[in-house]
C-alpha cells in the first residue's frame, strides 16, 4: 500500500509550486512517484532516492580518494577552519531553508566572514538596481488575476521555470483574466528564438548586449521624442508598436532573467527596466519582477537583509556589515586572492564560477555541504552530505515574489543523516567554544 502526501512544495526553482502530490511507501521511507511537478521538480524528488547516495561526510585525501568520517569530526574541521581563517568566504545558501541560513549567519558573524549567496552570479545586479531606484512589484497572485500584458525579457520560462506560465503568467484564468491566455498579450525580448519567444505576440530579437539601448528607446518612445531608425537591431516602428501595446494594457508586468542581469550593462539594464516600469505607470498599472532561480535565493536575500541590512555579498570581517559588489562579492574575492578559506552550502560554484575562482577554492581549506556529488564537492577538502530540504526536512523558503512558503517533509532521510540546520548548529556550538563566546 502507498500513501499520498498532498500540497507538497517543490524545492527546485523560484516559482516554488505548492500543489505537488507525492506517493510514498506506508513506512514513509521511500518516494514512489511525484504528481503535478515539472520534469525538473519531479527529478529532484526521485533523485533523492538514489541507492548510491553519499550518506556520511568524507575528507579528500592528497591522492584524490575519499575517506569517510563522522559528522562530529566534520563539524570540528569546519569550525576550526572558519574560526582560524583571516577572511573566510561562506557562499551558497540558495538551496537550503531560511533556518539554516540564519544559523550560518550566526557563525559568520562570530568568525568575521564574508557571506554571499548565488545572487552574486544571478540577480545580484537586480538588487543593486533596486537599491538605486526602487522596485514597483507585485505578487504572482496579482499577475494571475489581473495581468493582461506580459513581457519576458532575457528569460526563458519554458525551460527554466516550466510551470510559471501555467500557474501564474500566461494560461491561468484569474478573477479579471477569465479568458486565460486569450486575454493576455505576450511580448518576448530575447536575441534567440527560444520556445518562449515562439509563443509571443511580439518577439523583439534584440542585438546581444544592447538591452540597455532598447530599454532606453522604449522610454524615449513613451515620451514621443525622436528615435533613430534602428535601435539594438529593432526597427523604430516595431519599438513604437510594442510601446503602444504596453501602454494599452490594463495591468502589465515585466519578468526578466539572466539575459539582462548578466549581459553587458548588468545592473544598469535593470535600472533602466525599472525606469520603464515607472514610466508606464503614467499610463496604466505596471509591475516588474525578477525570475529568481534557486527555490530559496530570495529567502537568502531576505534573511541577510533582515540580519545585516544587505541582501548579498556581505563582508563581516571588521565586525560590522559592509556591502559593495566588486569588492565583497565572491568571484572578486576568489579571483583577487582575498580569502583564505571557503565554505560552500546549497550551491555549486564549481560548475558556475570562472575556472580561476574555482582554482582558488581548491587551493584553500574548503568545506562543501551538499547532498549531491558536484564539481564543488570535487575540489573541496571536506564534503558533508545532508538531507534534502523540501524532501527530507521542512523549513521556510521565499518565492520569487518574496512570499514565504513553508516547505514540507515528505520522507525520512537515510538513517543517521543530518539536515543543514542540524550540522550548522554543531558547527556554531564549536565555533562558540573556540572563540570563547558564552
Amino acid at each position, binding site marked *: 500500500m502507498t500513501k499520498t502526501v498532498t500540497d507538497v512544495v517543490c524545492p527546485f526553482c523560484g516559482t516554488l509550486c505548492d500543489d505537488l502530490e507525492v506517493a510514498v511507501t506506508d513506512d514513509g521511507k521511500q518516494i514512489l512517484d511525484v504528481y503535478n511537478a515539472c520534469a525538473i521538480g519531479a527529478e529532484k524528488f526521485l533523485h533523492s532516492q538514489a541507492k548510491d547516495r553519499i550518506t556520511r561526510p568524507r575528507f579528500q585525501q592528497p591522492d584524490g580518494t575519499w575517506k569517510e568520517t563522522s559528522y562530529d569530526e566534520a563539524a570540528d574541521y569546519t569550525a576550526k577552519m572558519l574560526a582560524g581563517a*583571516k577572511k573566510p568566504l561562506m557562499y551558497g545558501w540558495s538551496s537550503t531553508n531560511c533556518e539554516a541560513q540564519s544559523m550560518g549567519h550566526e557563525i559568520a558573524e562570530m568568525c568575521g566572514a564574508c557571506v554571499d549567496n548565488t545572487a552574486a552570479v544571478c540577480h545580484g545586479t537586480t538588487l543593486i538596481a533596486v537599491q538605486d531606484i526602487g522596485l514597483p512589484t507585485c505578487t504572482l497572485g496579482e499577475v494571475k488575476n489581473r495581468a493582461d500584458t506580459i513581457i519576458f525579457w532575457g528569460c526563458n520560462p519554458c525551460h527554466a521555470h516550466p510551470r510559471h506560465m501555467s500557474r501564474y503568467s500566461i494560461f491561468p484564468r484569474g478573477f479579471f483574466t477569465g479568458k486565460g491566455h486569450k486575454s493576455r498579450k505576450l511580448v518576448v525580448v530575447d536575441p534567440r528564438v527560444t520556445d518562449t519567444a515562439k509563443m509571443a505576440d511580439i518577439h523583439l530579437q534584440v542585438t546581444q548586449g544592447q538591452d540597455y539601448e532598447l530599454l*532606453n*528607446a522604449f522610454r524615449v518612445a513613451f515620451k514621443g*521624442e525622436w528615435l533613430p531608425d534602428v*535601435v539594438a537591431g529593432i526597427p523604430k516602428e516595431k519599438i513604437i508598436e510594442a510601446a503602444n501595446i504596453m501602454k494599452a494594457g490594463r495591468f502589465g508586468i515585466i519578468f526578466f532573467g539572466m539575459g539582462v542581469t548578466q549581459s*553587458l550593462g548588468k545592473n544598469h539594464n535593470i*535600472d533602466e527596466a525599472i525606469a520603464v516600469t515607472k514610466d508606464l505607470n503614467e499610463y496604466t498599472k505596471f509591475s516588474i519582477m525578477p525570475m529568481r532561480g534557486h527555490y530559496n535565493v530570495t529567502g537568502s536575500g531576505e534573511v541577510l537583509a533582515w540580519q545585516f541590512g544587505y541582501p548579498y555579498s556581505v563582508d563581516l*570581517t571588521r565586525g560590522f556589515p559592509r556591502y559593495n559588489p566588486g569588492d565583497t562579492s565572491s568571484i572578486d574575492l576568489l579571483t*583577487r586572492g582575498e580569502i583564505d578559506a571557503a565554505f560552500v552550502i546549497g550551491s555549486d560554484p564549481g560548475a558556475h564560477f570562472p575556472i580561476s575562482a574555482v582554482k582558488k577554492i581548491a587551493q584553500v581549506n574548503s568545506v562543501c555541504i551538499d547532498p549531491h556529488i558536484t564539481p564543488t564537492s570535487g575540489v573541496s577538502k571536506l564534503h558533508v552530505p545532508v538531507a534534502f530540504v523540501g524532501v527530507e526536512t521542512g523549513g521556510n523558503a521565499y518565492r520569487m515574489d518574496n512570499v514565504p512558503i513553508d516547505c514540507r517533509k515528505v520522507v525520512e532521510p537515510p538513517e543517521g543523516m543530518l539536515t543543514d540546520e542540524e550540522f550548522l548548529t554543531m558547527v556554531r556550538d564549536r565555533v562558540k567554544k573556540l572563540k570563547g563566546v558564552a
Partner: protein
Amino acid sequence: METVTITMKNPPVLYLEAEHVCPDEFAGKTAAQIAELHVYEGNTKSTLGKYFEVSGNAGATAAETKIVVKGDVKRVKYLGMKMSAGEVVVEGSTDLYAGAWMSGGKMTVKGDIQAFAATGMKGGELIIEGNAGNYLGAAYRGDWRGMSGGKILVKGNAGSDVGMYMTGGEMVINGDVDVHLATHAEGGKIIVKGNAPSKVAGQMVEGDIIIFGTIDVMMPGFKYVDDVDLEIEGTTAKFAHYIGDTGERHKKRKGQMVYGNLYQKI
C-alpha cells in the same frame, strides 16, 4: 610641509585595509605614533608598523603633511581615503578605494589604481599616471551622489561606470573608457581623449561630456542638435553636439528644459 615616508616591508598574505594612511590621520603624530595606527588584514587587526617602515614625522595639520608611499602596495586598499588637505604620493600601483570621499589636498598615484577610486569625491585633486579601474568618481552603492567636486586626471585608460551619478567636478581621461560613462550624471564635466564603446551618458540628467574619439553605439536617447567649435584643454576643434537622455526626467530652468550635453569631435 613635513614628509612621512612609509615603505612596504612585510607584504600582506591577503589584502590590507589601511584607511589611516591619510594626512588627516597622520597630522600631529611622530613616526612612532604613526606606526601604531591600526590596519586590518581580513578580520585580524594589527598596526601599520607591522607592514610598513615609517620614517619622518607628520606636520601639525593635514595641510602641512605629505605622505610618500613606497614599495609594493598593490594589495593595499583605502589609501588617502577621506583626506581633506595635504598630499599623498603613491610611487607604484594601488588597490581599491584610493582617494575615496576625498575633499581636499592632492593625491598622485604613479602606477595604476583599481576600482572605486575617488568614490563620492568632494574636492581636491587626484592624478593617476597609469590606468584607472571601474567606478572612478562614482557614487557608493545605493548613493545617488557620486563625485561632486574636485579634479581627476587619468593619464592612461579608465574602466566602466566612470562618473556614475556624478553631480559636479571635472574629470580628464587621456586614454579610452569602458561602457557606462556618466550613467545617471546630474552635473560635472568629463573629457575623454580616447574612445568610448557604448552606453555613454545613459539616464543622464545634466552635465557635459566631451569625447575626442569614437562612440561605437550611441544611446537612442541622445539627439543631434548642431555642430559647435569648442576649446578644450588648449585644443580648438569642431564637435557634434547631442542632448539627452531624452527618455530621462529633466528640470526646467528659466522655462527651458535642461538636458545633458554630449560633444563628439568630428
